[in-house]
């Protein structure tokens, strides 16, 4: 499988990593995600990695990068379904993925995204009201 699908769900994008990505696929995904966020004007990105069993430093950095990119584009991102082994590996590699937000599963991830988006809209409407 060359192409990792990016699905639009409501005002969010859902990226589901079904296989262990190689570096090339990861780079393609990063590009596609960037263009899709801009094209669909998505307010949030949900990255589901529950099927990923193996992670290396590159993959860890990719996750961090994707979170940063979506933030720059004005969207929130949540990584969901990380497996215990993957979490332990990332911690032991010393990758401080403090920038990414996480949730247990897609359901909770969606809820988290919704609250983040609501908060952002509330704040912005509040600001305009004050002006």
């Amino acid at each position, binding site marked *: 499988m060359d192409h990792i699908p990016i699905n639009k769900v409501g005002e969010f994008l859902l990226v589901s990593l079904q296989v262990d990505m190689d570096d090339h696929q990861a780079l393609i995904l990063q590009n596609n995600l960037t263009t899709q966020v801009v094209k669909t004007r998505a307010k949030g990105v949900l990255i589901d990695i529950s099927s990923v069993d193996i992670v290396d430093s590159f993959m860890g950095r990719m996750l961090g990068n994707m979170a940063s990119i979506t933030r720059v584009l004005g969207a929130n991102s949540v990584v969901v379904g*990380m497996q*215990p082994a993957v979490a332990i590996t*990332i*911690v032991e590699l010393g990758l401080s993925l403090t920038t990414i937000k*996480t949730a*247990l*599963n897609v359901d909770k991830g969606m809820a988290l995204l919704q609250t983040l988006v609501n908060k952002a809209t509330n704040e912005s409407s509040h600001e305009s009201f004050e002006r």
Partner: protein
Amino acid sequence: MTTNTSNRVAEIFTRYEQPILEDWLREQLAALTARQDLISEADLRRQSAELLALFIPACRAGNFTDITTPDWKAVLAFLSNISRSRALQGFSPSETATVVFSLKQPLFSRLRQEFSANVDTALADELWNATVLLDKLGLYTTEVFQKSREEIIKRQQEEMLELSTPVIKLWEGVLAVPLVGMLDSVRTRVVMENILQSIISTGSSMAIIDITGVPNVDTQVSQHLLNTVLAAKLMGAQCIISGIRPEIALAMVHLGVEFGDVVTKATLADALAYAFLKIGIVVTSTALHA
């Protein structure tokens, strides 16, 4: 030594097998008087008879003072079994070695009897050979005994590791892990895996790590705890560390140990209250107020 001498001992054994067995049993029983509760006389008799039955052909065939030769294989295997079972039953090493050493007395008295007519250097030689052989066998039992003990200790350590890290479901979505005893890297690893696995299987978004039972918290232990909290956070669950006793809190501040932005609470109750607040559960008392 020459085959001649070893044949003499073997001969004595063959000829006086029954009386030697009786004497030997009496010796063993005298030495083990306190341990009648651990092994019955009938069992002891059976073991001794079997050992003697293996011992005699080995004596006859084998190189008398070298127990590493294949002729002694059966005897050594049987002794290993005895030592191992005694270690499990709770005998002491010296009590186990007595099994072999108590054979000396009956054998020596028979030898003395045999040579009573012509007391010469032959008796001394025979005695020396028999002593060397029995000492070697005795030491062998002690060695096997020690090994079995170590195996038992190792197995118990592993069992303790599993026992000592239970993950409890306190509420829908709230897990608790009471840690008892010192935290080293091996245990932390087990704890970490247990917590993370339980987070997945129960779908809990809060996990409380209670360190009331951890005797001291130094920089290393705190690093282990922090790693666990970080890993849980990556999976989408929040960890609270609770049960920090006053003296631990003091020691931590003196050592400069910090838990970063991890939520810490004094008691498990406080941590549970915080978890409820986070997942939006309100607890009210139904007791009537005066």
